[in-house]
C-alpha cells in the first residue's frame, strides 16, 4: 500500500481541478505547490547536503526575471522562461557557488543571504534591463482559468520530487548526506566536497528558478522587492522545510501546506485582526521547539503525543 501512496496522491491531485473548488482555493493550492517545489529544492541543498542557504530568493528572483525579461525585452512568451531559466540558473549557481561554497556553516548562510540582497539591489538599480522598481507587468496572462497553471506547477512539482528522490537514492545522495554529516570525514573518504556541493547547489537553484519562472507567468507581475525578498522568499523557504521536515521527501510539501494554507486560514480567521502574525509566529516557535526536525521528521513524536502508535 505504502508503495503506491505517491501514485495515488498524484492521481488525486490530477483530478483536483474537477472537484469544483473555487478559483480562490485553486490559487492557494497553486501557491502551496509552488512553495513545495522551492522547499524541495532547498531541501536538497540544505536538508540533505547541509548547506543552509539564506538566499534562495537569489535563484527564485533570477528565474522570475528570466521569464519577465524574455517577455518584456524580446517580446517572447514568458513561458520560454521556464526552459531558459535552467541554463541561466545553472550559470548563476556556478558563480554563486564559486564564491560562497568555500565557506562553511553560518558563514555560508550569511554569504548567501548577502547574495540575495545584492541581486535585489542590483535589479532595482539596473533600470534599463529590469525596469527597476517599476517591475515587469505581463499584459495578458495565457489563461484566465487556473486549471492549466495548476497542471504546469503540478508537473514541475512531480518532476522536482522525482529528481530529488532519484538523487537522494543514488551515489549523489550518499555523498550529500556524508558532506552534511561531516565535511572533513567526507573529504577524507575521497568525496570531492566542493564538486558535490556545487552539484547540489546547481540542481537546487535550477529547480527554484523553475518556480520563479512559473511565478512570473502565473502572477503576471514581478518587481525586485517581491521576487528577491529576503524575508518573504528566502526565509519563508527555510521555514517551510524546517517546519515540514528537514531531509524528508514530504517535509517541504507538508511545510508548504502549513506556511501557505494554514497561514491563509489563520489570516482570515474572523475577529483576529492583525494579531494573526503573532499567532502564526508563536505556532512557528512551538514547532521549532517541540518538533526540531519538523512535522514529518518528528512524526513519531506527534503520534506518541496524540496517543497513537503505542503498540510500536
Amino acid at each position: 500500500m505504502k508503495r503506491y501512496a505517491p501514485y495515488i496522491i498524484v492521481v488525486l491531485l490530477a483530478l483536483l481541478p474537477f472537484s469544483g473548488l473555487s478559483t480562490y482555493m485553486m490559487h492557494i493550492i497553486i501557491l502551496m505547490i509552488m512553495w513545495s517545489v522551492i522547499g524541495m529544492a532547498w531541501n536538497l541543498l540544505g536538508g540533505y547536503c547541509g548547506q543552509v542557504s539564506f538566499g534562495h530568493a537569489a535563484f527564485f528572483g533570477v528565474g522570475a526575471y528570466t521569464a519577465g525579461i524574455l517577455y518584456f525585452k524580446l517580446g517572447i512568451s514568458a513561458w520560454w522562461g521556464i526552459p531558459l531559466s535552467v541554463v541561466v540558473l545553472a550559470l548563476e549557481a556556478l558563480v554563486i557557488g564559486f564564491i560562497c561554497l568555500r565557506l562553511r556553516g553560518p558563514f555560508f548562510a550569511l554569504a548567501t543571504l548577502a547574495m540575495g540582497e545584492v541581486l535585489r539591489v542590483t535589479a532595482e538599480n539596473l533600470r534599463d534591463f529590469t525596469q527597476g522598481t517599476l517591475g515587469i507587468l505581463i499584459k495578458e496572462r495565457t489563461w484566465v482559468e487556473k486549471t492549466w497553471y495548476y497542471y504546469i506547477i503540478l508537473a514541475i512539482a512531480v518532476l522536482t520530487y522525482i529528481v530529488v528522490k532519484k538523487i537522494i537514492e543514488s551515489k549523489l545522495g550518499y555523498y550529500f548526506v556524508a558532506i552534511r554529516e561531516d565535511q572533513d570525514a567526507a573529504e577524507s573518504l575521497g568525496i570531492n566536497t566542493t564538486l558535490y556541493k556545487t552539484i547540489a547547489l546547481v540542481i537546487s537553484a535550477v529547480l527554484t528558478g523553475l518556480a520563479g519562472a512559473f511565478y512570473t507567468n502565473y502572477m503576471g507581475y514581478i518587481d525586485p522587492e517581491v521576487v528577491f525578498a529576503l524575508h518573504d522568499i528566502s526565509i519563508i523557504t527555510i521555514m517551510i522545510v524546517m517546519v515540514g521536515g528537514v531531509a524528508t521527501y514530504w517535509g517541504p510539501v507538508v511545510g508548504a501546506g502549513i506556511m501557505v494554507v494554514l497561514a491563509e486560514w489563520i489570516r482570515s480567521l474572523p475577529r483576529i485582526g492583525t494579531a494573526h502574525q503573532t499567532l502564526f509566529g508563536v505556532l512557528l516557535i512551538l514547532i521549532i521547539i517541540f518538533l526540531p526536525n519538523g512535522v514529518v521528521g518528528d512524526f513519531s513524536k506527534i503520534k506518541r503525543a496524540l496517543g497513537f502508535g503505542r503498540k510500536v
Partner: protein
Amino acid sequence: MKRLVLLMVIVFLSSLLITTVATAGDTVTFTIPLPLTGSKAKFGEIEKRSYEIALEEINAAGGIKGKKVKLVFEDSQGKPEISRAIAEKIIDVKKQPVIFGEYSSSCSKAIAAVAEERKVPYLVVTGAADNITQQNYRYVFRMNPSVSYYTSGLRSFLKEVVKPRTIAIIHESTDFGTKGAEGMVKDAKRIGMKVVLKEKYESGAVDFKPILSKVKSKRPDVIYMVSYVMDAALLMRQIKELRIDAKLFAGGAAGFAIPEFIENAKDASEYVVTATLWSPMVAYPGAKDFAEKYKSRHGKYPSYHGAEAYSALYVIKDALERAKSWSSEDIRKALKETNIVTAFGPIKFEDREGYQNQNFMDTLVLQVIDGKHETIWPLKYATRKYVYPIPRWRDRR
C-alpha cells in the same frame, strides 16, 4: 495524525464556505484588501480608519439603496500573492461584484490583473504607478492621479513664483520615487530649469549628510525631494544641520504631506513646500468635515491616503446607486460615467494621454507655515499666502 489532519481540513474548508455571499439579505458586504501588518501597515491603518468613517456616514444616511453596508478588512501584508488571493476570494467566494482598496502599487497591479481577467471592476484607490492604468484594462479605474501628475500644481508654483534656474533632485529608489523624479525632470525642461543633480537612495536610510553635502556644493535654487514617510523629515533635519540654503525646499507629496513630517522635522520643516493631492483644509465639499472627524478620533489629521479611501466608498456608493443592476458589467458602466465631487475632489474617469479610466485632477501645493500645513497654491484654494523668499537658516531663530 490522520484525525488531526482531517479535523484541520474540515475546519479550514468550512471557515471558507460559511462566508456569506456579498449581497445577501438587506446588507451588502465589501471585503477590502489592505496592508495591515508589515512595513506598509501605517497606510493600511489610515485607510482602514477612513473607510470606517465613510461607512458610518453612509449607514447613518440609509446605506446604499436601502441596504446596510458592512466592511471586512483583510490583511494583504503588502505581498502581491496574498492580495491576489484576497481578490480571488472576493470574486469567487464572496461573489462581490466590484473590488476596491489595496495600498501599494505592486499589490494593486496584482489585483488589477485578476479583476481584468475575471471582468470585475476594480477601483484603485492609492496605487500611483503610472502603468496601472496604461494597460488598456477595461475594468480597472483609478481615483488618484498617477505619480507623474502629482506635481502639476507645484510646477506652476515654481514657474510663476520662484522662477528658479537650477534644481537638485533627491528621490527614494522605489517606483514612486523614481517616477516622481522623472516627472520633475520633464517639468524642469518645460520651465527652463537646469537639473544640477539627481540622486536616489534606499528608503529608510539613516544618514543623508553625504549626499546633502554634495547638493550643497552645487548650490541649486530648488531642492526637490521625493521621499516617503520619515525620510522626508530626516532630510530636512539634516539640511538644516548642514545649513544648506536654497531658494526653496520642495517635496513631492507622500512623506512631506503627512502630519508626521512636521512632528518629526520640527522647526526644520518650516517653509518647506510640497505637492499634494489633498489637504485637510481644501475647499472640496466634506473634506474639512472628514478631516475633523478623523482628527477627533485618532488625534491627528489624515494624510491624502485617508481622503482617498474615504471618498472611494462614496464613489462606489454612487456607482452602485446609478447601476442598472448590481452585476459587474453594469457597475463597470456606472463607474465609467462617474462624475461627482468628493471630499478628495472631483472624480471622473477619462481615457487620455495614454491612460484609461484615469481620474485627472488639480494637485495642490502646501507650505509649512507656523508649524502647520497650509494650502498655498493654486491661489483659488489657498488658505494662506505663501511665504517667499524664505529666510536663510542662519537668520532663523
